[in-house]
């Protein structure tokens, strides 16, 4: 284009000469820039890395939510658990978990290669992608692991929790992850898990990440038993209020922020879908908070702060499976229903099943994860993703597959969680002594207070 201009307008005035010269110097520079434009490959790598960093930031989110919803005397212990499960989980996933989740498939059930990223060449484009993908997947594994600490907060032995974290990131999470996501790394070459071969849809991990964490937390809460004073002698549930709702609220916002890496990042590709996935994620989180707020308002007379916060997380967990498959309108409805469901579930688990889950981890991540997974069978919309759900005239096959997937992962994660916690209970013990629990785990497990200099009022 510039060449043509030069030919038609040149040689008329000195000014034009100057302009032509300027253009002539600029043109090579532009050509150079064109050649160096971000390739699709590098764009994918960059986007996946940014998303992974956002997902890593969900760790402080979880830490703050769990800390805020528990008592001041245990705040430092919760923080240590969140620090530990990330610090232990990421290396363990690198050494063992990744290979089981994404390695050479054996019968659709688990992988068997790629341990410690052996054989990956960091100088090749493929190797660079592999390591980026590992980083992205390791922060996901750490997310599943960190969900558990909230469900068993305020009474679990720190030493037992270390072993739980290692077992989850080495084995429990990678096995069910393999069922649904195995081919994300090696494609057809390394084989697919049995659930994904059936067409199971869990785009960013309502089931693979959140339900797994939620169900292990539920198993842990059952085996460890309720906190002292949680249930009266005649079995009535008592409230043990969290000590810092502002911290918990900040944590929810941070999780919400991180979720924009969790869901849109799960494309691991830069394409046009990442925008609508972010829209869907935002919609469901908003209506999740609204649903919980309105439902609590009608049911209990006040728009409960902690329940509304749980509602936003419930919406986020529920949209995670279908964020690529549903429309923004579908997301609004899924979030709203999840916000209502999470309150019903928290109250059912707390008051009817009498399982003490201090932060509602099993309801937010387990129950709403299953709900979101099943919802894909109804809400998968034409034009979004690759499937059409029942509400848009699709068949019921997707719904059936979603139900099978959610049930199978429940059986695995809950069952493995029960076995793991029971073995720990019979060996090193899972619970602190009564005296330690009354004094608080900060002093008794870690030898220091979280709020030195503050007066913590005891009113139990």
């Amino acid at each position, binding site marked *: 284009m510039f060449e043509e201009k030069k030919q038609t307008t040149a040689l008329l005035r000195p000014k034009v000469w100057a302009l032509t010269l300027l253009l002539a110097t600029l043109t090579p520079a532009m050509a150079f820039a064109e050649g160096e434009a971000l390739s699709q490959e590098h764009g994918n790598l960059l986007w996946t890395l940014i998303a992974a960093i956002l997902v890593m930031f969900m760790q402080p989110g979880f830490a703050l939510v769990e800390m805020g919803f528990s008592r001041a005397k245990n705040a430092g212990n919760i923080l240590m658990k969140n620090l530990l499960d990330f610090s232990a989980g990421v290396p363990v996933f690198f050494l063992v978990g990744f290979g089981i989740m994404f390695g050479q498939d054996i019968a659709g059930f688990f992988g068997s290669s790629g341990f410690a990223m052996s054989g990956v060449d960091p100088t090749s484009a493929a190797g660079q992608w592999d390591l980026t993908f590992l980083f992205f997947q390791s922060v996901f594994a750490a997310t599943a692991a960190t969900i558990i600490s909230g469900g068993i907060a305020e009474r679990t032995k720190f030493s037992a929790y270390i072993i739980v974290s290692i077992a989850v990131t080495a084995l429990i999470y990678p096995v069910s992850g393999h069922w649904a996501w195995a081919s994300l790394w090696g494609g057809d070459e390394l084989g697919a898990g049995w659930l994904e071969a059936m067409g199971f849809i869990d785009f960013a991990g309502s089931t693979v990440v959140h339900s797994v964490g939620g169900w292990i937390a539920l198993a842990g809460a059952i085996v460890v038993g309720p906190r002292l*004073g949680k249930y009266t002698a005649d079995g009535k549930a008592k409230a043990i209020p969290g000590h810092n709702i502002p911290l918990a609220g900040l944590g929810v916002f941070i999780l919400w922020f991180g979720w924009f890496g969790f869901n849109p990042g799960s494309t691991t590709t830069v394409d046009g879908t990442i925008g609508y996935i972010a829209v869907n994620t935002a919609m469901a989180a908003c209506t999740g908070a609204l649903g919980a707020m309105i439902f609590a308002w009608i049911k209990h007379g006040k728009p409960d702060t902690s329940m509304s916060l749980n509602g936003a997380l419930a919406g986020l967990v529920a949209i995670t499976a279908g964020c690529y498959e549903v429309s923004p309108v579908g997301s609004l409805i899924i979030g709203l229903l999840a916000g209502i469901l999470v309150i019903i579930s928290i109250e059912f688990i707390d008051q009817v099943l009498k399982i003490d889950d201090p932060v509602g981890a099993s309801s937010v991540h387990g129950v709403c994860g299953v709900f979101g997974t099943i919802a894909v069978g109804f809400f998968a919309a034409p034009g979004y993703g690759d499937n059409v759900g029942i509400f848009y005239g699709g068949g019921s096959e997707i719904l059936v597959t979603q139900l099978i997937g959610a049930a199978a992962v429940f059986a695995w994660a809950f069952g493995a969680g029960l076995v793991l916690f029971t073995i720990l209970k019979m060996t090193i013990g899972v619970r602190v002594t009564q*005296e330690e629990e*009354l*004094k608080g785990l900060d*002093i008794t497990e870690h*030898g*220091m*207070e979280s709020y*030195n200099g503050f*007066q*913590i*009022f*005891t*009113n*139990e």
Partner: protein
Amino acid sequence: MKLVVAYIRPECLNAVKQELYAKKIYNMSVTNVLGSGRQKGFTETYRGVVMEVNLLKKLRLEIGVNDDFAEQAVEAINAGARTGKEGDGVIFVLECAAAVRIRTQETGPAAMG
């Protein structure tokens, strides 16, 4: 009339309250206090450095009762607060010269409820 003042372990408050309720004693005031008894505190480590903590967190419980309830209040506090280890605290029973219930203007034993 007696004023029962007890210094107890914070973690024993619930147990003490339940014991008091069982004896139909519902009026009490609770404040956070720092104090030390014979055991002279404990040691804590902070970032690897040992620190002495001389004053321990305790709760101060005050209960105004009529004479015939004083013994029961002491019994209840004993039952709820005793672990048998150092730091269980102490109970003082003081004579109470006068009492006025502000809303009803009742005085004397009637004001103690």
